[in-house]
């Protein structure tokens, strides 16, 4: 009871002094909170940035023969080609990690002949801006415009309505043939049942900075019609948010069925590229889904490095703010020599005095930690906005950690000085020595 009064008075009478302590504890705690939030979320954010590396999972039809492909050109005889069903792609949004599937696009690849060009040109049927209605009634927007964010488009994406005859052309091809958006272009396609020719309008020219610059991209339905393969696709690309591979993922990649049940569950429920591919294969019959190591591996390396960097920086900043708080508490206790001596002189035990001061430190630490978490929350939002342009997710798990940390550090900071002072004879302290 008495302790409560002393504590209460100590905070009321010395508001300014206490406020300063709380503020500084809050500042240190906010730094720790920010770093914690950033370190916890930076992996996801970096991964999202790296999505412009391209899709990281490829879905192919299961085939009996190995494809004979040289530098991107398929040499297998036409008859052996297997296909996937276009409608099966909707199942991608029903797998366990459906929310991590950021986008996907089907491809139907063939070659076409253009007048004046000696060699056949790659012709790819695909989605550009597709609005899908999922089984739960929600809609999902995907296609090349979403998937290939680094493609520079001059003109506009083709209209994908059934009657549309619009295509986009790669920049190399367009330059060498002097094709501009708006020009007509006649394509000839060989298929199993004869040769078909059709005249299209070039709606845009794309600069992809890669081999795609030599090809032609048309709405999927048109290419399906030209090849007489309605509803079929030859492959699909999926862009998924994944976590870097670890030892478990490596083992699973070799053979998922070799894992023990617990390991398998853990692998299946982690967003590894391999686990997502496995779930895709489960849901789309007759498909082979493969993580693109070129993409997943570079993403993994970079995400790991940056996460590690952030972790070290957070530890360093937590230590530096902890030390700051410690030195402050130390000097604050020193200024109260007389008060302590007086209490002892009128009969307080050492334990009682220590208990009082530690309670005070704990309250300051608690308040400072709370305030700091609040400031940290704001700062995290600011950093998220100005650095990543999105909101960083603030995980509530940080709050107890920050509170504990600030209380612990505040108490730790006042303890050594407190111990020294309590040992002093009251007479000496009071007499002004």
């Amino acid at each position, binding site marked *: 009871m008495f302790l409560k009064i002393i504590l209460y008075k100590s905070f009321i009478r010395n508001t300014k002094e206490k406020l300063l302590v709380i503020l*500084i504890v809050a*500042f240190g705690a906010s*730094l720790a909170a*920010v770093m914690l939030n950033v370190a916890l979320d*930076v992996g996801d954010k970096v991964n999202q*940035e*790296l999505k*412009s*590396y391209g899709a990281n999972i*490829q879905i192919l039809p299961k085939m009996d023969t*190995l*494809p*004979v*492909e*040289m*530098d991107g050109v398929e*040499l297998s005889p036409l008859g052996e080609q297997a296909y996937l069903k276009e409608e099966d792609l909707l199942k991608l949004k029903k797998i366990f990690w459906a929310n991590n599937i950021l986008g996907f696009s089907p491809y139907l690849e063939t070659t076409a002949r253009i007048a004046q060009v*000696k*060699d056949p040109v790659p012709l790819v049927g695909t989605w550009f801006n597709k609005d899908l209605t999922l089984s739960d009634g929600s809609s999902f927007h995907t296609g090349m415009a979403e998937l290939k964010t*680094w493609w520079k488009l001059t003109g506009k994406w083709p209209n994908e309505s059934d009657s549309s005859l619009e295509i986009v052309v790669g920049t190399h091809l367009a330059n060498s043939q002097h094709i501009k958006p708006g020009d007509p272009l006649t394509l000839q396609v060989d298929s199993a049942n004869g040769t078909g020719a059709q005249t299209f309008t070039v709606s845009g020219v794309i600069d*992809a*900075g*890669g081999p795609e610059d030599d090809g032609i991209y048309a709405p999927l339905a048109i290419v399906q019609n030209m090849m007489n393969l309605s509803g079929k696709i030859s492959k699909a690309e999926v862009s998924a948010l994944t976590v870097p591979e670890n030892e478990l993922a490596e083992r699973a*990649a*070799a053979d998922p069925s070799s894992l023990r049940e617990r390991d398998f569950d853990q692998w299946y429920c982690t967003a590894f590229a391999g686990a997502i591919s496995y779930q895709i294969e489960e849901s789309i019959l007759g498909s082979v889904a*493969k*993580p*693109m*190591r*070129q*993409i*997943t*591996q*570079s993403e993994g*390396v*970079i995400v790991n*490095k*940056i996460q590690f*960097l952030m972790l*070290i*920086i957070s530890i*360093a*900043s937590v*230590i*530096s*703010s902890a*030390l*700051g708080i*410690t*030195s402050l508490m*130390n000097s*604050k206790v*020193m*200024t109260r020599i007389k008060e302590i001596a007086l209490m002892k002189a009128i009969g307080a035990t050492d334990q009682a005095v220590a208990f009082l001061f530690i309670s005070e430190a704990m309250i300051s630490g608690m308040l400072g930690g709370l305030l700091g978490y609040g400031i940290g929350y704001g*700062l995290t939002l600011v*950093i998220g906005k*100005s*650095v*990543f342009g999105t909101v960083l997710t603030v995980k509530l798990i940080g709050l107890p950690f920050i509170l504990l940390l600030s209380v612990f550090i505040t108490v730790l900071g006042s303890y050594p000085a407190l111990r020294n002072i309590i040992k002093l004879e009251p007479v000496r302290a009071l007499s*002004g020595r």
Partner: protein
Amino acid sequence: MKKMAMFWLIVARSLYFRKLRSLVVILAIVLGTGVVGGLVNVYYDMSQKMAREFRTYGANLLIYPAGKQEKIELATIDQIPSHLPKESIVGLSPNRYEVVALEGKPVVLVGAWMDQMIKVSPYWKVEGEWIHDRENVEEIMVGGAVAKKYDVKINTVLHLDDKGKQVAAKVKGIVSTGGAEDNQIFANMKMLEGLAGTKHADVVLINTLAKGSELEQAAQSIQQDVSKLSAKPLKQMVNSEEKLLEKIRRLIYFVAITIFITTVLTVSSTMVSTIMERRKEVGLKKAIGATDQGVMAELLVEGGMIAMQGSVMGMLFAYCLSQLIGHIVFQSEIAFRAVIIPWTLLGSLLVMAVAFFLPMRRVMEVEPAIVLKGE
């Protein structure tokens, strides 16, 4: 002369007798300047360090023959490196494709400089071992899908048939990438030359640190100066790499500033309270005839010395921290920038100055008689 000696004696004694308090302040400065300085070092070296990590992506400059039916002469490959910035080549290998028969079925055999492929395509997952020698014509590496289909294990001997000409080779490693490589077989250029009897390449893969306009310039100069070649830079990653680096750098910048502010706040608040404590001392000094300036000079020099000690140690700490980050995160050294030395010194002196001048007036105003009487 004597007066100066006395002045330094007072400063030295004062530091000595309050060593615990000074130590705490020094430690705070050491940590503050150390962390900020270390971050500045990392900040400057980041792009260079990360550029190497980004090269996990593999080849970013592809050299093709100028015409579709042509091939690349092996001799022209030697001319390529001089067109790229010095030491920017991570890996370079010509590739040549032949369709050979394996158990009667066609499969693509890729000829390369296998000692370079590990640098050109660091993302390959290899079970078994890489071929580390360009001259090795007894061993091959096979793609994962090929291995599965033909039940190939490490050390299996495969018989490859190129239009009647046979070669037997031992499998040294199995490659999985999720891409076209899974369906291919890899061997040294020399083995293909022996099989086919001709010497040429279909494409040259280059993994280089050059990026953006540098890369495009290199591609252009190769195309102009080396006849019959066409160079294609892959630009898709450059953009996102730059953007990402910029973001991480901004993040570090943010953190450095916040740590700096925390240090300023804690150091100055600690100093303020230590100085306030010394009103009695100041009063005594004034009572026995010290001037205001004299007392101020003493306190300032004292603070300055603490700041100097702190920042010198802080710089050492900064060096250690940046090396630690360099080694743990990037497995290489991070250069120490001399720029940070004057700035850390200046910064900590400034913090000290602020911490001194805030309470100085109140300390100087003390009436010796009142303070010394005990109130």
